[in-house]
């Protein structure tokens, strides 16, 4: 039995996941918690948010995120992929900055219009 705190929403439910019995989740108050509890033990994922350089706009960096959660152990790999990127304004919110970043299936998208 593994105890976890759910991070899908700010409520932070205290989950219990039974690894030996098909990863059944208890303590969750919504289906997203169940999904999280199972995924966290089998293949944990996270949304990565960061910035990339941006020229010609009102600010020197543009905030970005992964369009969906990526494997937790690839976070630093994804960060490294952002290092060389420079956008040019105008940038639209949701604009794809790097498609399928590091083969994760997630895109890096801009989270602010610049």
């Amino acid at each position, binding site marked *: 039995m593994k105890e976890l705190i759910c991070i899908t929403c700010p409520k932070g439910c205290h989950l219990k996941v039974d690894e030996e019995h098909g990863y059944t989740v208890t303590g969750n108050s919504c289906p997203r918690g169940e999904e999280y509890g199972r995924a966290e033990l089998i293949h944990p994922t996270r949304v990565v948010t960061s*910035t*990339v*350089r941006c020229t010609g706009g009102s600010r020197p*960096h543009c905030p970005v995120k992964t369009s969906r959660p990526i494997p937790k152990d690839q976070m630093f790999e994804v960060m490294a992929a952002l290092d*060389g990127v420079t956008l040019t304004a105008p940038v639209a919110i949701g604009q794809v900055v790097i498609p399928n970043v590091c083969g994760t299936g997630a895109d890096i998208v801009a989270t602010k219009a610049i």
Partner: protein
Amino acid sequence: MQDVIIIGCGIVGAAAAFELAKYQVRVTVLEKENDVANGTTKANSAILHAGYDPLPGSLMARLNVRGVALAKKLCQKLDVPYRACGSLVLAFSPEECATLETLKARGEANGVPGLEILSGEEVRRREPNLSEKVLAALYAPTAAICSPWEYCLALAETAVRNGAELHLETEVTGIEKAGGLWLVHTNRGDFSARYLINAAGVCADAVHDMAAPHEFSIRPSRGEYYLLDKAEGRRVGCTVFQCPNQDGKGVLVSPTVHGNLIVGPNACPVVGEDTSTTAEGLAFVREKALKSVPSVAFGQSIRNFAGVRAHAAETSDFILQEKDGFVDAAGICSPGLSAAPAIAEYLVELLKNAGLTLEEKPDFFCQRRRVRFKELSPAQRAELVQENPAYGRVICRCETVTEGEILDALHGPIPPRSVDAVKRRVNAGMGRCQGGFCGPRVVEILARELGLWPEQIQQDKNGTWLLCGETKGGSAYV
């Protein structure tokens, strides 16, 4: 070749430069830090003492009383925040009541005007927040408060405007006498002059020893302070002392010219310029302050700081002396700020007696004004913003300081090179958020105006870097 080189640009060095700038004398000021007023001058009680503490007949007594009288006019001329708030010394016991009598007699001997002993009731009527336990108090109407760093800056700026040279980041490494001249070695080359003034504060003994046989030692004494939010600024109307003891004038509670409340200091011997605060020191300051004013709300603290006073080991008086054209202004502990302009007069007198010819400058310019947006009326503000829109952008929200004021400072006679130097000139970052909001914006303005990268901007002295570099493969990765 200069006529006079002044070592150190704290309040004493700046006042000496100002005084000499009145004459046709070539003056150079050498300062090791990247700004003036960066030692004891920026970290003290900011009080101009009336002058009842020093022993009659001492240099300290004479120069203190004359100094505060001069300060009043100088601050007005040079646009330095100054308020004649008066001071009280509180007595909590019959013995302390006797001390008040002694202080009053001493003050009168020193020529301090208007001293008066008030009863407990009288003093509480004047200052309702004082402790019920106060039995009596000595009131001194000539005591005042000022902005010590702006006072120093104003004197230095005026000296520079009148032809004095100021070299910042210039540290004296050796002094020798060669061919009838003083040769001063620094990290930025050699300077020579007929006369030297040693106004090096805590380092005055070391500077003296470079030029002459050892004579005195500076024993730095650290004082720790609380600075409280403006919400506490009216807790007392005048500067409130306790009876002096062997450690000095004791813990005071005082308004500041910026509208805050200052509380401190303790007195603790330290080595060198150790301006750290300690849990014990701060606790001591709190306890003593609450004895005078029990309602001080320390929860409103916005900053702690400490300053070192440059006491001389050999004497409790100022050391002001000349030999061979080398003038010491050493051991300038409290009331050094109060006495500064009178010390400067005295130093110039010493130089004159040593043969320096003093011919007045016919065009000596003794005026200084800066925009203080916050203090203007709505109509004046509107006019100013229309003239120059930079005054319309508020950078420091706590103190209402505008970009225009920061730009003025950057184009002034002694431009700021660091975030704290901006703070000392225009008050940005002095308020309750302590630069949390305006810090990044001041860095941006400094970088833009000085043509530097943001990571080159210092918080205060050199070495106080703020940013290690750009993210995203930028300089932070090097």
